[in-house]
């Protein structure tokens, strides 16, 4: 039960991010969630869109370096401690986390968190066993 995330390499230059978001916007790609990793020299834009293949083709054609990865979209009750609970399950199973960010839209009284783990299959199994709800690519359409 994974969700597809698209990541784009951003040069550390004024207008870099504006260019990518403008291109996506012009072609009606709705960024449902996004996160930016930054280093001194470059950034990585990570985003969730409904049509990942289309976005990948559009951005690659425009000359960007793009990658599609599988991430977990975890539904947690929207109260303090809930996130800690989910992260504890992962760490108890020895699953490392690469990065995490929250989804813009909420799911009723649940918050949606995007988590990229280093062992995707195992991470998914561990959370499923613990009864944690995860969204699929199809579920995203209705969020």
């Amino acid at each position, binding site marked *: 039960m994974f969700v597809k995330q698209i*990541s784009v390499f951003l040069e550390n230059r004024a207008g870099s991010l504006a260019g990518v978001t403008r291109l996506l916007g012009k072609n009606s790609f709705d960024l449902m969630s996004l996160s930016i*990793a930054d280093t001194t020299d470059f950034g990585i834009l990570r985003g969730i869109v409904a049509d990942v293949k289309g976005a990948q083709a559009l951005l690659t054609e425009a000359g960007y370096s793009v*990658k599609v990865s599988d991430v977990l979209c975890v539904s947690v009750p929207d109260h303090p401690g809930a996130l800690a609970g989910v992260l504890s399950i992962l760490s108890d199973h020895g699953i490392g986390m690469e990065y995490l960010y929250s989804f813009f839209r909420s799911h009723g009284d649940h918050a949606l968190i995007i988590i990229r783990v280093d062992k995707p299959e195992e991470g998914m199994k561990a959370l499923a066993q613990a009864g944690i709800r995860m969204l699929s690519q199809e579920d995203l359409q209705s969020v």
Partner: protein
Amino acid sequence: MPEIIGPDDKGLPYGSQGDLTFTTLSKHGMPLLRYRTHDLCTLTDELCACGRTHVRMGRIMGRTDDMLIIRGVNVFPSQIEHALLQVAGVEPQYQIMVDRENLLDTMEIHVELSPENMSDTVRELEALERRIANSVAAHALVSAKIKLCQPGSLPRSEGKAKRVIDNRKL
């Protein structure tokens, strides 16, 4: 005996710029015959202001090849290209920026990120930068800072690409 040699290996008259070569006249063990230094300069037989009459050389204006000297090490862009090709998935689209900071030469290599090397984690991209830097250090014997760039962002040219931008004022 110094001479200035042109690209067609013919000796050039005083005042012309060309490859500075040396021929030893009294060495026994290992004589040099028109040993090319690959440095570009001029020779003149004009009288010096102090009165001496021997041949004098002008300032060295450049190289006949594309060799650079970085912190005392001879570096050829072809070595950098070879080093880049040793790293999986790296295409030799690069530009070498040379500068001097605080009296020390610095070398920064801009390398285009190929689609197959793109990653969603900073960790993997930084590891790629390190792999490239290690390859450059192993092949060219200099430590350089590696900067990843967007594909297609480095200038392309027909014929020989301008690989080196030397900002040092020598």
